[in-house]
């Protein structure tokens, strides 16, 4: 057996280095993607359970133990449903639109550092890449609304486009604050800049930006209470009103993948990503698992933010559209600009994480 493995290894070594690199990268990518999709599947289950218990219901409990197989039942159901392409729609764009929303939602995971040293693409401009791909996500919504050729879908698409656009600016400005504190665009470096326990996390010095970023993230993903794009009581289901079966499932997957992504990004930018909150507690012992950095801390933080998504959904009624625009333009953008100015002054005075300014 060992001999066989050795010969296998030797065979593997005989490949050119570039090819090996590509094969390994592809394997990692597939692993991460499958994990993300599984997370999404169980996020839908988690959502129904959480909201169910908040409303005094049980939630899904029929398929499998505790209803745990519910997401798979849903997937199979959606797969065997008919995909209706309305007659007057633009067929090509109608099919392309879900693709355009799933690609950025998945591909952004390439730069997310899952634990210290594991990231698929360790690029310098990681944060820029994240922002660029998020801004591409709006195409899926706009094209779906336009290609459908239905008034509901079109209205939903326009609403959602204007909303995403407004909150993207608030998000960008909030990230400038993070960059000022971290001094790098690489997501791994941003996490490492927060090493050293709870008090070093950016959530403390950047508290207003944290709220702005997370709430903008909720608005960007078109989740309640900002879900006017699909407000079912007004425009039925908004931009995906005519999507059925698997085409709808892809939009659904993209929405939830974006939700998990926003949670992960918030954890990385403000809560130290993979870092342990007890890092500085020396009385726990030097090799305590609680103090070690690990993927599980990141996973815990992501789960918490996903929970907050559902909590918000179960708590708040839907915002009115003009109030959404007001919140984005007139509240969040001023807050972020003021906070950037505050950080600038603190950098001038060499306070806090901004002390590295050369004089």
């Amino acid at each position, binding site marked *: 057996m060992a001999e066989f493995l050795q010969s296998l290894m030797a065979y593997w070594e005989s490949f050119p280095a*570039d090819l090996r690199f590509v094969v390994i990268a592809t394997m990692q990518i597939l692993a991460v993607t499958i994990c993300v999709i599984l997370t999404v599947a169980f996020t839908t289950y988690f959502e129904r359970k959480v909201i169910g218990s908040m409303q005094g219901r049980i939630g899904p409990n029929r398929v499998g133990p505790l209803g745990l197989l519910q997401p798979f039942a849903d997937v199979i159901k959606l797969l065997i449903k008919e995909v209706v392409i309305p007659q007057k729609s*633009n067929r*090509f*764009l109608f099919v*392309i639109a879900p693709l355009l929303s799933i690609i950025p939602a998945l591909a952004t995971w390439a730069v997310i550092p899952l634990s210290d040293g594991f990231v698929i693409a360790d*690029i*310098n*401009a990681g944060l*820029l*890449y994240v*922002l*660029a*791909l*998020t*801004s*591409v996500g*709006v*195409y899926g919504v*706009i*094209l779906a609304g*336009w290609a459908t050729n239905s008034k509901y879908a079109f209205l939903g698409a326009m609403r959602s*486009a204007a909303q995403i*656009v407004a909150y*993207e600016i608030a998000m960008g400005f909030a990230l400038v604050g993070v960059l000022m504190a971290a001094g*790098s*665009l*690489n997501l791994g470096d941003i996490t490492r800049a927060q090493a050293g326990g709870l008090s070093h996390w950016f959530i403390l010095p950047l508290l207003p930006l944290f709220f702005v970023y997370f709430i903008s993230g909720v608005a960007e993903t078109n989740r309640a209470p900002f879900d006017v794009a699909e407000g079912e009581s007004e425009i039925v289901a908004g931009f995906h009103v005519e999507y059925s079966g698997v085409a709808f499932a892809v939009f659904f997957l993209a929405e939830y993948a974006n939700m998990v992504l926003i949670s992960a990004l918030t954890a990385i930018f403000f809560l130290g990503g993979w870092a342990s909150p007890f890092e500085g507690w020396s009385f726990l012992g030097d090799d305590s698992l609680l103090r070690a950095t690990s993927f599980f801390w990141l996973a815990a933080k992501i789960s918490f933010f996903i929970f907050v998504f559902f909590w918000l959904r179960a708590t708040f009624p839907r915002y009115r559209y*003009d109030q959404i625009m*007001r919140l984005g333009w007139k509240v969040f953008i001023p807050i972020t600009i003021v906070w950037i100015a505050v950080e600038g002054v603190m950098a001038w005075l060499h306070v806090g994480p901004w002390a590295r300014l050369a004089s």
Partner: protein
Amino acid sequence: MLHTILFYLFAAVLFIAALGVIFSRNPVHAVMFLVLAFFQSAVLWLLAEAEFLAIVLVLVYVGAVMVLFLFVVMMLDINVERVQGGLTRYAPLGLVVAVVMVFELVQIIWLRGQANTETLGFAATPEGYSNTKALGAILYTEHVYAFEIAAVILLLAIIAAITLTMRRRPGLKQQNISNQVAVSAKDRVRVVKMDAESNS
């Protein structure tokens, strides 16, 4: 070698996408081809190691400018005949622009050839080099005037956009939130003390 193959591959897609922009009958398809073209140019810039510019190209052009284009194109009543009629009308102007651009391109390539510069590669970048940092280090110090002029131009753009497109429709009812918040109970509710009526 791989570098060259990738370059020609992406350049070819860029070329096809650009042709698609011109020849699509549906304006929305044309815009999508333009998006593809921007993506391909971003990859080409990446191959030239202009990391920051490549991603900002996607961020600004694909993420913002093309969204505006899509807004405009989507909401037009698309009349293909009329659009095609415009072709003959604007052809002379387009030709002039094309000739000027070709002239400029040839001149640049020719000058490069004359100057006999080392075109085989860029200087190797040191360990831990970040394209964005390097750009930032000179943009805000050496090129500070250009940077401030950019700010003035952006300010102008804000003002121009507002003066061109702002229309207030008369007679619209509006909600003034600060007024609403500033209201106190005694402005709205008056408690009147009344004696019980006596039955006479």
